């Protein structure tokens, strides 16, 4: 390791001021800090710091997503790995470009976005669409607003929303039948050309016609749908990990699940033949995935605790409305984007209340 460190430090001058590759300093920094912890020290009090850093923070999210990735590959085949590779390649090149132009380090936030994006895509979607979606999401959803930490909308969801509205045919026609048996599709590479495997019947689409897939299938995940959202079991496992490491705030998750279940249960109770049961709806579609992984993004959600409760309630209610009262089968994407839109206003309301309390103190 000392040898590697020496090599890395020896080529550093090429990337510094006046070096040949000075423009690529962000890329060099990213690789150097990936390999070795930084050597910066504290200058003022406090003289020690917590071991956590942003890389570790983001790594927790990636670890939490691994169960979904495993089930995704099991049910839908090795094409998912191609999706991940394309997503990272397209996204990282855009990020690197912006970092080079802005002369700033590449931020770790992208590693999570790049991993999340393929998980919300249909498995057989054309690869160029994945690249386009990621690029759109990163540029319009994040970079134009100032980069990591300053974006308003979840970049993965912006990309997906864009694709769903611009290419509805390909997006709704790229679902695959899930693999079955011991090996599932672990060794298969299935894309749109394999006509047998392609289906357009996700559980939510079937529900519009009155047919409800069994709950056990939906819990384990042997149904068609976006790669990461089918298996409620995997999502819960990863989500619990995320909650335990406190990377995701439990208030948002709790609020979404409670408001969603409450409203869905009320509707089902009112008209059982028109609205599906609440628990079924919970496992269907991207609600669980959105609740645990997308709505809990700390940058795009509200920063106050009270705001988080309201935000979750908004998302839960809007998802139920969109799923049951519109022509769209899946509402979580729109719901979370709407939540992102109203998050600043929700925060302002909570701050106004809190400042009134602080005025009296001290």
């Amino acid at each position, binding site marked *: 390791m000392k040898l590697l460190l020496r090599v890395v430090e020896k080529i550093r001058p090429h990337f510094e001021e006046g070096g040949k590759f000075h423009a690529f300093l962000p890329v060099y920094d990213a690789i150097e800090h990936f390999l070795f912890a930084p050597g910066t*020290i504290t200058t003022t009090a406090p003289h*020690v*710091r917590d071991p956590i850093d*942003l*890389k570790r923070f983001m*790594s927790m999210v990636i670890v939490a997503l691994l169960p979904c990735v495993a089930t995704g590959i099991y049910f839908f085949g090795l094409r998912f790995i191609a999706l991940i590779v394309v997503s990272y390649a397209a996204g990282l090149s855009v990020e690197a470009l912006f970092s080079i132009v802005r002369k700033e380090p590449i931020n*770790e936030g992208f590693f999570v976005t790049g991993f999340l994006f393929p998980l919300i895509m249909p498995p057989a979607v054309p690869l160029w669409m994945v690249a386009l979606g990621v690029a759109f999401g990163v540029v319009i959803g994040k970079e134009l607003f100032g980069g990591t930490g300053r974006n308003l909308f979840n970049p993965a969801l912006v990309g997906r929303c864009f694709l769903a509205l611009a290419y509805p045919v390909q997006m709704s026609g790229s679902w695959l039948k899930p693999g079955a048996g011991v090996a599932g599709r672990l060794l298969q590479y299935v894309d749109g050309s394999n006509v047998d495997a392609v289906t357009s019947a996700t559980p939510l689409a079937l529900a519009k016609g009155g047919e409800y897939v069994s709950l056990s299938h939906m819990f384990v995940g042997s149904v068609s749908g976006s790669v990461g959202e089918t298996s409620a079991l995997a999502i819960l496992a990863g989500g619990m990990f995320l909650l335990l490491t406190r990377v995701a705030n439990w208030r948002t998750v709790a609020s979404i699940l409670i408001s969603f279940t409450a409203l869905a249960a009320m509707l089902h109770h009112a008209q059982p033949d028109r609205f599906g049961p609440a628990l079924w709806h919970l496992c269907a579609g991207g609600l669980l995935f959105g609740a645990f992984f997308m709505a809990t993004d700390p940058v795009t959600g509200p920063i106050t605790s009270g705001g988080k409760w309201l935000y979750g309630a908004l998302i839960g209610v809007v998802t139920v409305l969109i799923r049951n009262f519109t022509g769209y089968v899946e509402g979580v994407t729109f719901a979370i984007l709407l939540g992102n839109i109203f998050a600043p206003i929700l925060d302002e309301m909570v701050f106004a209340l809190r400042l009134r309390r602080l005025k009296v*103190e001290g």
Partner: protein
Amino acid sequence: MKLRGGYNIFLQGRPGSTIKAMPEPKTLYLPLSSKRFRFSAIHVADGQDVALGDVLATDPNNYDVPLLAPRAGSVRLGQVEDTVVLENIAKSQEYADTNGRMEEVQHVERTFGAAGAQRRRLMMLGAWQFLHEAHSGRLPDPLGTPQAVLVSTLSLEPFTARGDVQLQARLLNFTRGLEHLQSLLEYQPIYFVLPDIKSEFASIVRNHIRGYASVKMVELPLTYPYDDFAVLARSLGLSSGNGPVWALRTEGVLAVDRALTAGKPCVTRIISIGGTGVVSPGHLRVVSGYPLKCITDKHVFEPHPRIINGGIMTGEAFGPGALGIDTECRGITVLPELQEREFLGFMRPGSERSSYWPCFLSSMVQRFAERLTTAMRGERRPCISCNACEEVCPAGISPHLIHKYLYRDLVEEAAAARVDLCVECGLCSYVCPSKIDLRAQFVEAKNGIAREKAEMLETKARQESTEEVNA
């Protein structure tokens, strides 16, 4: 009692309970600036011989609090910048002649009464400097009337001098000091903060002062920074608008006793020497001005140490020109500077790293064998509003919000978000995953706001005086 936030950092290097007396020094270096004081009015001349307890300098901005000579010797001014050097420390310690001051004390007693005379004595004998005004942290006015007095035996910041160590074999002095404090007040309450009301120590204190002092005992959970005076005052409901709150720690009460019972100047201090850069952390008995080199030569064997005046959360590193301990020093912390960079640092399971975040294996195993260094442990990144700083803040403000305002230079909004409530405990900077230096930003913002306010008051006063002249 409303207490918020707070966090205890697990680390090695806690000072043990032994107190070692340091050998008598040959020269003393007394700094003229410390955290709160600036002894700008010097009362001795170069070459003058002084006795123990003589006034060397006073701070005109802090009610003329004196800098006392800890030993008899000859003064050297101008030898070291901003320091009074005492050479030829006499072998026999003669105390300063206090008879000449008896007239002054009688004069004070006539003017201000017995209580006033007591306070004057505290000031002259170097005991008043141990008091703090809880909300502002400054030296309280000796002629003022407090609304309450806080006595805290707790010293929760790693690694300042521990209160329980200082009380060893000094319990009688402590209770006498409490009685003296009571005699300074009329009816104001004394709040006595300790970790366990039911402990033997508490009952001993209660028995000793029964009939002599009425003291309200307050139990406090042992979490940093609940022992901070501002946090204590606010949680006890003592608002700053009702008058000053006097606060002192164990060493303050012991100094009060020494000054008023024995009438001797308070020049000896017990400081801690701790941290991961010290082989056997403990306590030392020294005088102010003790040469730093003697201490570090004996206790610090780290090749690259950072020597800090104070604790790891709020202390300042000793500069290269610092030769002696100042009068407000409560402990010396030594940390090794970062030496090696870990390979794939962020991916390690981290079974020995203690962290506020449960993202490491250590949170399950509860083993903290790490040797902390001064490493930043991450790159500086933009704020992601993870809310850790807000959870851990004892003052109840929102550090990430204030940081975002200050980042965009919106100082007024930051003031509206009550950055003035910050107690500078340093926990927000400690837990931040983006490694933002929040404490430094807030200290700067508070100084800027205070300066602007002072300027505004000055211009207003000038305007009013010109109006008076014109009228």
